């Protein structure tokens, strides 16, 4: 089966900087594919190219088997977009937001009206049909944006940081809805800088930084390949961590020191955790042994320093 999205050597250059510096990826039908990266990594530029609003500067891109350069209109007819910025129409009440948005697509008004009703129920806003947009909470607005993105029953749903700025309850509700959509077979592309979000939702993901892809795999495989299965953290200054490491055989386990933290990445074969804990106790230092997460992969690949 042909992929839903296929990109090779894809680039986006603006007048004074390169946002996307030649990336390759394939997104298969029915999967949830993630773009993970710090701010400015090139995620949103990539999304805008998938959306066929901004055109690639170089490289190949095919979306739903079509070329965005010539078929932008037809691509967008079959696309759902949940943008990062909240751009619901504050001049219109909840239901009209869906009806007016639906009118931009080539579908009958009655069909749009029926879907609008179903979608408001789906995102649990059925009792808010006549409310004004400014009356909605952040989570309700985001759910409405998702409902709006589904008004044309899209084959591909683009979600640009769908839960940024929401409280935990609101995030979990949105994740539930997105998993329901995935179960229905909707292909999804997601950008996020929340690792837990990517781990929960994405079948496969790429980690991006400075417009380049640093790694691509399933969340599980990324963690195992780049970090291991456990992480040992020790509160220690640079000098303290030198002393600490001098007294223990690391057997090749990778470690890093930044600021006031020593981090040791452990795979199953190392079997070091007991010795590290013992040594930390002797030194009377604060320590933590925890499961490795996508965040460790992310920080390892993109660096712990603040990028601005």
């Amino acid at each position: 089966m042909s992929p839903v999205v296929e990109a090779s050597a894809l680039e986006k250059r603006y007048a004074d900087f390169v946002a996307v510096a030649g990336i390759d990826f394939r997104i298969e039908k029915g999967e949830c594919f993630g773009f993970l990266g710090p701010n400015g990594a090139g995620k949103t530029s990539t999304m805008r190219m998938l959306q066929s609003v901004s055109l690639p500067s170089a490289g190949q891109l095919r979306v739903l088997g079509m070329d965005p350069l010539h078929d932008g209109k037809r691509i967008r007819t079959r696309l759902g977009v949940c943008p990062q910025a909240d751009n619901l129409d504050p001049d219109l009440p909840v239901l009209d937001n869906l009806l007016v948005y639906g009118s931009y697509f080539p579908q009958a008004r009655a069909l749009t009206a029926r879907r609008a009703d179903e979608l408001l129920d789906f995102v649990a806003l059925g009792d808010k049909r006549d409310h004004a947009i400014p009356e909605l909470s952040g989570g309700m607005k985001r759910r409405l944006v998702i409902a709006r993105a589904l008004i044309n029953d899209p084959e591909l749903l683009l979600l640009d940081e769908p839960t940024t700025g929401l409280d935990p309850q609101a995030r979990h509700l949105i994740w539930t809805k997105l998993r329901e959509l995935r179960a229905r077979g909707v292909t999804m592309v997601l950008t996020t800088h929340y690792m837990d979000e990517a781990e929960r939702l994405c079948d496969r993901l790429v980690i991006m930084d400075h417009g380049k892809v640093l790694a691509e795999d399933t969340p599980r495989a990324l963690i195992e390949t780049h970090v291991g299965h456990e992480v040992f953290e020790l509160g220690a200054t640079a000098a303290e961590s030198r002393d600490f490491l001098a007294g223990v055989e690391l057997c090749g386990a990778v470690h890093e020191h930044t600021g006031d933290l020593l981090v040791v990445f452990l795979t199953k074969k190392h079997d070091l955790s007991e010795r590290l804990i013992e040594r930390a106790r002797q030194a009377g230092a604060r320590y933590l042994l925890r499961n490795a997460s996508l965040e460790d992969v992310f920080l390892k690949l993109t660096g712990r320093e603040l990028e601005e």
Partner: protein
Amino acid sequence: MSAETSFFHGAARVAGRNLTVWRRYAAASALGNFGEPLLYLIALGYGLGRVVPPIDGLSYPEFLAPALIVSTVMYTATFEGTFGAYTRLTTQGTFDAILATPVTVSEIVAGEILWGGLKSAFGATVVLTVVRAFGLVPSWLALGVVPLGFLAGAMFYAMALCMTALSKSYEFFNYYFTLVVAPMYLFSGVFFPLEGAPPWAHRLAQVLPLTHVVAVSRGLVRGQPTWSTLGHAAVVLGCAAAAMAVAARLLRRRLQI
């Protein structure tokens, strides 16, 4: 689902979105269109008019009325094309949201201008009704100011949209209103006849699009169109086409980063 939407579908739905919003505030909007020209008509037409001698055989209110219809059009279209469109372009992200659908930038521009024309034609109709009530409309040809209002409204809206595409803030529009719109209002033959003005002033007035709109409106409302009325109409049409082309170019640049 049909494969693709037409250019007209996109433009009509963009205009339709604005119409849907406007319907919620239609009463306030109509009051604005109705109240201000009425005040000018009373204060200037009948107040100041008492000491103004007849112009080409017309009383001052008769002279003023056709011009008030189209100056309302200019202000309606200009406000909507600057503050209204700028809000949709920036703070509300309306255009960004629409661009995620099959609607294109060109369709947004066309739909916005179509909307500017419709809203202006509505404003022209309201003012026409008002001045008709004062017995200042002798001819049925005056109904022509409705399509004229649409055309002139589309032109002024497109001009305003150019400013919107260039603007970085609401304050920027002060330049446009003070340097372009206000002089146009005052020196386009709305309040005094251009005939008899010094030749340089007369020539200068010909550069202002409103001058030609006022001339067409007078010809229609008085029921005495001439060949020169047709000439003025052609100038309005030309200006409208040019302003739309420039607006489309500027807005495409602004929206498609």
